[in-house]
Structures are given as structure tokens and as C-alpha cells.
């Protein structure tokens, strides 16, 4: 996939970074399996070329879960073909990638319903029922 903000002359060159990141993910996944401790990698902070990013995405593949979210702009979350390794891509202005991260965990926190939202939802539903009965 073409990275939105990469310099043209960088986009075609693989630097080997994808394999380095993959090795780090592997260590994090073993830690998750052993102790349950999650791990995270901010992909934006790494000097990945387009080719590196595409290679990493291809190496990790896609698994059973793929989600699209609408949170002040589009976001995509998918579990890679390695269970417990999640890829989150947040898009910002003009659909460009604002930030991207790998989460090595049972489920990314972003997908959990927050207690505050649950409480607000309960209130709204209660009000809806009261209005409907009237």
C-alpha cells in the first residue's frame, strides 16, 4: 500500500526494517503468551519506507477480524494472521494516515466499550423507552 506522506524516492526501496520490526513483534508475542503482558509499536515513529510498510503488512497478513470505525475520521483495525497481533490505522484530514500502530494484546483497548459511554448509552435507552411509553 502506498504510504500517504512518503518521499517518492524512498517509496520503492526496502531497507530491511520490516524484518527488524517483525522480530520485535515476535518477542512481544512470546511475552504475551508467557505472561499476558501486552506490547505496542508506534509505526509512525519508525523510519519505514513504503516498501518496508508493505512488506511488513504482507508478512503479517490478515486474520479473522477486520473492523472499520468512524471516529472523527476513518480508522481500521484488523487482527493479523498471528493471533494477538493487531494492526490499527487511524486516518485524519483528507483520509491520510494520521497514526498507525501494532498492538500485541488480546484485544486493543480502542475496541472496548468505555464505562462512561455505557452509562450514557443506558441513560439514552432509558429515556427512549420512557418517551415511547408516553
Amino acid at each position: 500500500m502506498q504510504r500517504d506522506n512518503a518521499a517518492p524516492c524512498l517509496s520503492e526501496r526496502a531497507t530491511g526494517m520490516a524484518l527488524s520490526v517483525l522480530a520485535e513483534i515476535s518477542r512481544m508475542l512470546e511475552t504475551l503468551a508467557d505472561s499476558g503482558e501486552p506490547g505496542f509499536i508506534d509505526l509512525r515513529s519508525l523510519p519505514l519506507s513504503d516498501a518496508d510498510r508493505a512488506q511488513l503488512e504482507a508478512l503479517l497478513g490478515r486474520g479473522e477480524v477486520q473492523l472499520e470505525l468512524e471516529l472523527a475520521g476513518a480508522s481500521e483495525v484488523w487482527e493479523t494472521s498471528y493471533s494477538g497481533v493487531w494492526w490499527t490505522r487511524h486516518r485524519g484530514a483528507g483520509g491520510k494516515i494520521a497514526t498507525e500502530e501494532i498492538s500485541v494484546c488480546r484485544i486493543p483497548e480502542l475496541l472496548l466499550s468505555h464505562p462512561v459511554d455505557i452509562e450514557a448509552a443506558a441513560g439514552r435507552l432509558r429515556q427512549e423507552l420512557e418517551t415511547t411509553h408516553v
Partner: protein
Amino acid sequence: MSDKKTLGEMLTERGVSRRTFLKYASYTASILALPPTAATAIAQGIANARRQSVIWLSFQECTGCTESITRAHTPSIEDLIFDFISLDYHHTLMNASGHLAEEARLQAMADNAGEYIVIVDGSVPLKDDGIYSTIAGITNLQMLQETVKDAFAVIAVGSCATFGGIPGAHPNPTGAVPVSEIVTDKPIINISGCPPIPEAMTGTIAYLLSFGSIPELDELGRPKAFYGEAIHDRCYRRPFYERGMFARSFDDEGARQGWCLYEVGCKGPVTYNACATLKWNGGVSFPIQSGHGCLGCSEPNFWDMGGFYKPLSTATGDPLKWAGGAAVAGAAIGAASAVLARTKRNKAIKAGARKPSQEAK
């Protein structure tokens, strides 16, 4: 005015979910170079914060900094910061004008004493009692001193407010000085650049909101998250520099091949900013990617650094003269040159820090 509800309560009422907070927090953590695990703390910090009162003062400036922070595009995650602040005074953007505008400023100061943030763009003229720039019948100096009195912190945005900028360039006819020469008893955060990168401004405000404290600053008072590395260090053309492959003019083969722009005047080696990573216009590009050398606009006295198109070795009379030899010698000289460039930068900073006050007097 600042709302008494927390941002979390306020935005929940408007249907903004905590997932959206978390997305914003992930974005903020990323631009602040914080680990992804900081996102949860940022989201919680913002949710518990009150809407931040901000008073924006514009003095000797071109409005480029305001253009930068309010860049027009579709509502998105990057714009959420504008829901988190209450911009109580900004004479370019506010609806009120004349005495009503000034009353809004005074009211915001009274309502939020000790808690509001003052953002300043533009330098402050001191020569001839500051008469070269006035607003509402008072000089910029008077307005600044009056407004910062009860502020929590001051953010100087743009190279004019941080270092004097173009108004302070030789011969500095108005005696322009940066904010830091006037405000000495409040925390000051300098967000330099002409203009600064929008994310550097919004990210710093988000940090203040999330953690209630000042981010780590460099020796020039700039957040290290954005000004911790030289543009040269993160430039995608750096490998060409290391190999001694330079454009010698803007229309030669080296320029067409995208080689290093050091020899056509690029100031990337002595300029600390995040242009090479955050880029501009929503991450589309930055000057070097567009084929032009860095002007060094986030450094003190960038306008007087000796010429935008002269290589660093000749622009400043620095012993880096031999650095042109890096074109031949390659990586070894490149590394040594970078060390010398940093030394040169430190000298420039010292000279720059003194210059505005000397000329003002």
C-alpha cells in the same frame, strides 16, 4: 469562557465517544514521540480537564502562524483540539471587534485568573516607547504585560515571538524583541518556525491539557518532542549526503536525482524542527522533499544567517569550509561535519540570543 464541566462530560453530551478520545490520544502520543502506552493517560487527562481558556495576542506578525494552526480541511482527528480550548480572544478570528473585543479579553482574564494560557505570535517593538505596533490604543508591550499577569503559561508561536524573526532582522528598525525578553516570571514555551508546524502547536497544547505541566524543553525553550533532532538527521536525502552525492545547482543532474541540497544552501544540518517527520499540509511534503533547501526558519536569526543559497560553509564564514569536500570524501567527513555543524549552531544560538536585546537598547 471556560466551561465548568470537564471536557469528558461536555463532549459525551455532544455524542463524542471515549473511543474518539482514545484515537485522538493515540495521535497525540505519536506526534509527541511518547510511547503508545501513554495514549490511555492522555485520553484520561483530557477527559478530566476543563476547557482551556486561551488568549491569543498577535503583535508584529504576518498572520502566517494563525493560518498554519487553522489550516482549512475537513473536520478530522487533528481538529479536535479546537473543541478542547476556548479561544476567548484572537483579534483576527473573533466575531467581536473594537471595545467589545478588548472587554472579552479582560473578562477571560478575570474569569480564569491563574489558569489561562496566553499564546503570542509576533515580536514586540520596544524602540521609541513601542509606538510601532499598537492595538486598541495601547502598545504591544503594554498589552503583553497586562495580559500575562495572571496567566498559567505563555506559548510563543512563530520565529517572531520566539526569536524576533523578520521584524528583528538587521537593522531591526523597530527594536523588535521576542516574548522571552519581556516575560521573565512565567513559564514560556517557544514553538519556533516561520510558521511553526501546526502539530507542534496543537500537540503542545494537548500536552498541557493532558498532563497539566510543561513538556520537556531544549535550551531555547522549545519542546524536545518537536525540536529534539536536526532536520538533517531525519532527512530522507541524508544517505546521499553520507555518500557525498550533492546537487550543485537547482537544474543539474543531482537535483533531478533528488540528491542532498547541502551545497545549494540547505540549513537542515543546523536546524532543529520536525519538518522531515511530521511534514506539511497534512503530511504531504516539506521543503526539501519539494526540491528546495531548508531555510532554517526555526532557528534564531535565520533571516541573517548569510544567504539562503550559500552552503553553510560559506554562508557564515565558519571553518566548515572544508565540508564541501564531503562531496568527495563521503561518510567519514559527513559524520565529522555534522559534529562541526552542531558546534556552529550553538555559536549561532548564543549570538542570536544576544542580538535582539542589544539592538533594542
